[in-house]
């Protein structure tokens, strides 16, 4: 009994934990989303799509994911490569870069709100430098573009660290000998990066992209802190329907949509960045 069943016994607590606190609520949420007064149906989804904020929420969410995730990946790649060339102080730099990881989403959102609002640090600085004559309101419904940029900046600051950590770990597994060999044959640093380092980092880029895309679709606290109701995204609309409109079933419909998008994004990255079987360790 011991030898054979032991592994199952050991993972049992985790399985039970996930089943009770994750799987059951998931099934309940899906059931709730399809439950209408006239039996199971798509009524909640129709109400969701009919709402005046739905279109904005979809557009904002996709814009947000579409801009924040590539920016974060590019920045994190650059930072990971720079880190590779550091000798002394590498750990210190990595440590500083990952500080935002230790902050809650909401705290990060509030920090950026304090910087960017019309009486915030940025406005005061511009005022003292004489660039603006009086406080400017950027984060209102009248300036949706500025609002969008502010949300992207805050998310970029907060969540790039996790991408760096994953990419740094991946980069450490890439042997330096390949790059040295290529450079002996006269390859430029850019060519080495695009032809050798990048392809070898594919598995870690894939993990980072999956993680970031899914979390960006679920972005909530940063968005709500900076944008409030002026910048609806899918998850904040789910919250509004549950909390203010007291309609859990429409909120559940939103949750199902977000889940569908997350699954689709994961499948997409798994397919696009597939690592051939012979390359897998």
């Amino acid at each position, binding site marked *: 009994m011991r030898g054979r069943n032991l592994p199952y016994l050991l993972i049992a607590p985790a399985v039970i934990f996930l089943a009770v606190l994750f799987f059951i609520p998931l099934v309940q949420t899906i059931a709730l989303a399809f439950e209408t007064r006239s039996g199971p149906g798509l009524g909640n989804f129709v109400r969701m799509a009919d709402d005046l904020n739905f279109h904005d929420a979809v557009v904002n969410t996709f814009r947000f994911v579409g801009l924040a995730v590539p920016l974060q990946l590019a920045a994190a790649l650059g930072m990971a490569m720079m880190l590779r060339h550091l000798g002394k102080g590498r750990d210190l730099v990595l440590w500083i870069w990952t500080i935002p990881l230790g902050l809650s989403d909401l705290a990060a959102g509030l920090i950026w709100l304090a910087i960017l609002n019309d*009486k915030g640090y940025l406005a005061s600085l511009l005022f003292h430098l004489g660039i603006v004559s009086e406080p400017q*309101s950027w*984060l209102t419904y009248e300036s949706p573009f500025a609002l969008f940029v502010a949300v992207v900046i805050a998310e970029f600051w907060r969540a790039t660290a996790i991408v760096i950590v994953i990419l740094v770990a991946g980069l450490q597994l890439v042997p330096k000998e390949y790059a040295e060999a290529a450079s002996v044959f006269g390859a430029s640093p850019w060519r080495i990066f695009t032809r050798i380092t990048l392809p070898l980092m594919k598995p870690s880029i894939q993990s980072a992209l999956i993680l970031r895309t899914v979390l960006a679709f679920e972005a909530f606290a940063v968005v709500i802190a900076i944008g409030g*109701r002026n910048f609806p995204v899918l998850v904040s609309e789910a919250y509004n329907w549950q909390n*203010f409109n*007291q309609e859990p079933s429409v909120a559940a419909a939103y949750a199902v949509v977000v889940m569908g998008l997350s699954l689709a994004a994961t499948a997409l990255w798994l397919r696009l960045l597939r690592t051939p079987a012979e390359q897998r360790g």
Partner: protein
Amino acid sequence: MKRRTALRLSAALLAATLATGEACAADLVFTSGALAPVQEAQKMRTIILKDYIGTVSFLPDEPPAMLTRLRAEFQGNARVSSVVGANDGDLAVLAPTGALAPIDDLAAQLAGRGFAPDLMAMGKLGTEHQMYIPWMQATYFMVANKKALPYLPAGADLNALTFEQLRAWGEAVQKATGKRLVGFPAGPNGLMHRFFQGFLLPSYTGGVVSTFKSADAEKAWTEFAALWKTVTPNSTSINFMQESLLSDDVWIGFDHVARLLGALEKRPDDFVAFPAPAGPKGRGWMPVVVGLSILKDAPDPAGARALISYLTQDTTQLITAREVGFFPTVRATLPPDLSPGLKMAVSAIQNTGGAKDSLAAMLPSGLGAKGGEFNKVFLDTFQRVVLRGEPVHEVLARQGETLQRIMTDANAPCWKPDPASSGACQVK
């Protein structure tokens, strides 16, 4: 030896944990959708409840979260709360779920306190039985910074302001300062929907639901959209007007007394308080009632009754008025030594109710779980007409359909100032 000590220690710890657990369970749990801001909750715990004979755990929350928690207690069959204190509208959401116990006997027992009869009648929530005892009342009014007074249009009386004059005032302030300094609490936790339901629409149309699509309503929204041009764009983030008044972001603001009092108390010399403006049909205003109910199968029904009796004594009611700015529901004369801020609030409320053209608009009732959706109709109309500039006529037609569906689904009869209806209230 060591091991035994450890054992003993853990046994002692366990006993201590159990004991405190028991003490907590013995407390009367008072869940509240009112007095949720930290300062008010603290005053409730340390001052208002101080002389109560038992121990009370006062657990306030924002109304939606409070409703969700009570629903969870009820559905999970894990009763913790005995008493719930909430706005009339929120108790109306709970009543149809069977979460509240009828308290006719308690109402009879407390009859000698001198409750205002119409408030007591509201406590039936449209049923045969008394579902709550009126606990506190309040309303909404406006506060202006004295710096704005020089720009008041000629001939305008602050206590008899019209919407037209408010717009002219806002424009004059904007012209002089270059800034939009009128404010409305249209943030996510703000009470903007009450402004439409209790002030703007009754003032222009004399109704709320039945007149929703009328030509008068079109005029109300069109003129409000014009007024909005003088309103600070930060309004859609304002939840508590007192903060914006104190930071000078807003010079002329509308809100609930409990969300204005902080400014009046802190800098009484800088502000004036006055009734909300009037429209062609009168000075619409909404009295707010907060009630106390006992939950069905409450863990401590006797304690719950004692607590409600304590909170509706005239001495407690006066302390409540002084500390948190909600006014008595029983016959009680306010003491002359009120703070200047509170005095201003009281006189603004009296000027509102006592105005010649006063037109009281009741809180929505009979909507049950549809209350949130009902509010959304008004907020969506606001967003479409005022913030996005969509054509008024089409928006009202579309939102009117939604409103009618809600009224029909809830089978809610009209409430004042709409004329009484036999069945569900009809959007005409």
